[in-house]
């Protein structure tokens, strides 16, 4: 038996390192025909805001080489709807549910964090300072050190549980932001969110996305994400939750070797709704085949 448990900061233990990334897995309910959610280490649910958001206009998606661009823009029914309607339905699953919180201004983040603080059964939140698809707030907080620190400090005061700050890769030096939020009270960091990109239809000479630019995800970004995880792992003491183009167990193991304590499966969920469980089985098989008794032994085990 491989010990699959991992610690992801603030004393929070997951039963295994495989989780699903915010915005790619709905609230889990969308996947119950395909997999047993109880098997997952955790679910980072769709991004939540204080009030209902309609998101961006259509088109919101463009297929690219080995990936896709999205410009969904945090469409969600608001934190109150989550608390009153969604969470009561999903709390029965024996997996860690992570609300992913967003805001246009610091006060929004505080208000959402205070509401999350009152939810019984929720142990951690993901503080999203890296959404590239909203006009105000979002990534703006995550691309400058002072604002990343300010929002993390504010949420730290408002929230008693574990805070995982989701970082943007659209920065000069991601380790500076990571160190900043670590100092501001983050228990862990998750990275990377999507890369700002764009797609053009050469025939119409128009942008494909309604927002012109959008967030690139999928295997196209994996080598850059892996590099950033490695850099951040070496720069901070708090756990790193790695993601970015993980399509199979091999990719997931590479992210763990680079320093991820847990991994998030994102865009791959769109291609195969059962991929998260397949990746978990693949990690377990790798450990068995390589005499790794505890999966945590893979974290940062890169031999350089």
């Amino acid at each position, binding site marked *: 038996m491989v010990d699959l448990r991992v610690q992801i900061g603030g004393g929070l233990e997951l039963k295994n390192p495989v989780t699903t990334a915010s915005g790619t897995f709905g609230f889990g309910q969308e996947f119950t025909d*395909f997999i047993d959610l109880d098997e997952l280490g955790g679910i980072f649910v769709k991004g939540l805001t204080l009030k209902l958001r309609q*998101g961006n206009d259509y088109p919101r*998606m463009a297929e690219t080489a080995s990936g*896709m661009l*999205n410009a*969904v823009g945090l*469409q969600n029914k608001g934190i109150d709807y989550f608390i009153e309607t969604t969470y009561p339905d999903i709390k029965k699953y024996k997996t860690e549910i992570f609300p992913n919180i967003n805001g246009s201004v610091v006060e929004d983040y505080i208000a959402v964090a205070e509401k999350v603080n009152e939810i019984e059964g929720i142990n951690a939140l993901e503080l999203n300072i890296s959404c590239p698809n909203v006009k105000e707030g979002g990534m703006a907080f995550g691309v400058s050190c002072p604002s990343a620190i300010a929002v993390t400090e504010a949420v730290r005061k408002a929230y008693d549980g574990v805070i995982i700050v989701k970082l943007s890769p659209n920065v000069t030096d991601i380790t500076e932001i990571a160190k900043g939020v670590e100092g501001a009270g983050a228990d862990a960091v998750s990275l990377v969110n999507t890369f700002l990109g764009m797609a053009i239809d050469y025939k119409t000479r128009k942008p494909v996305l309604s927002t012109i630019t959008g967030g690139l995800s999928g295997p196209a970004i994996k080598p850059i994400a892996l590099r950033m995880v490695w850099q951040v792992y070496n720069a901070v003491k708090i756990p790193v939750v790695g993601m970015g183009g993980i399509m199979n167990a091999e990719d997931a193991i590479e992210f763990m070797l680079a320093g991820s304590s847990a991994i998030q499966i994102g865009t791959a*969920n769109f*291609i*195969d709704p059962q991929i998260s469980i397949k990746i978990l089985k693949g990690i377990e098989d790798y450990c068995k085949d390589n005499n790794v008794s505890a999966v945590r032994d893979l974290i940062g085990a890169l031999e350089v």
Partner: protein
Amino acid sequence: MKKVQDFKVLEYSWLNDENYILKLIADDEIPEIKPGNFAEIKVPDSADIFLRRPISVLDVNYEKKTISFYIKAIGKGTRKLGQLNIGQTVNIVYPLGNQFVVQDEKKVLIVGGGSGIAPFVLLGRELQSKDVDVTFLMGGRTKNDIFLTDEFSKYGKVEVTTEDGSRGEKGMVTHHSLFKSEFDFDKVYTCGPDPMMKAVAKIAESKGILCEASLENMMACGIGACLCCVTPTHDGNKVVCTEGPVFNTKELAW
């Protein structure tokens, strides 16, 4: 219940050089498929085609475990799906989306154009099983755009319009004479190009009858997780893959 399932290519029927029917066969049971449902098809052996392709189910045979799709080869994914080997494995996620609603209609009109005719085989069959009087109205630019009329004639009367008059009445579907005579349909179902569906919905609304339209949209997941495929409605953005693809046209803010 939705599932992920491997099929094998059983046969192709080419209707012309860019329209074809892909028939797949499975080892396992096929879940119940409703008129309007679609599947997300993974294009096999195509590293450059990242996402699945959402395609309406044309027909299904539960005993023989076959499913077929009417596909128009318009992009790299739909072209590649027309070039597979017989026996090649194709993975699909299905059945997805909502369905055309059949309640207590007595006489209905089904208006289709282009690849939008795909869901109307299953719909026609269901309506026929409930003894509903069905009229199909199929539109195209020329006679070469009109397909499957023999199939549709099993379930009801088939009318055709072509813009060049090479088959049926000349003009757009909305110019057909049936709109000028006594209009006694109690429901209209439509699927095809947006401008056609909008025009059909407008007529239905002016006659005071319900119109359901099945929308096409660029999709990633097909199961309501990514929220990429939205359409504006009078009640905000709705997700086409799970809240649609079939909508009461009165809801749509198009």
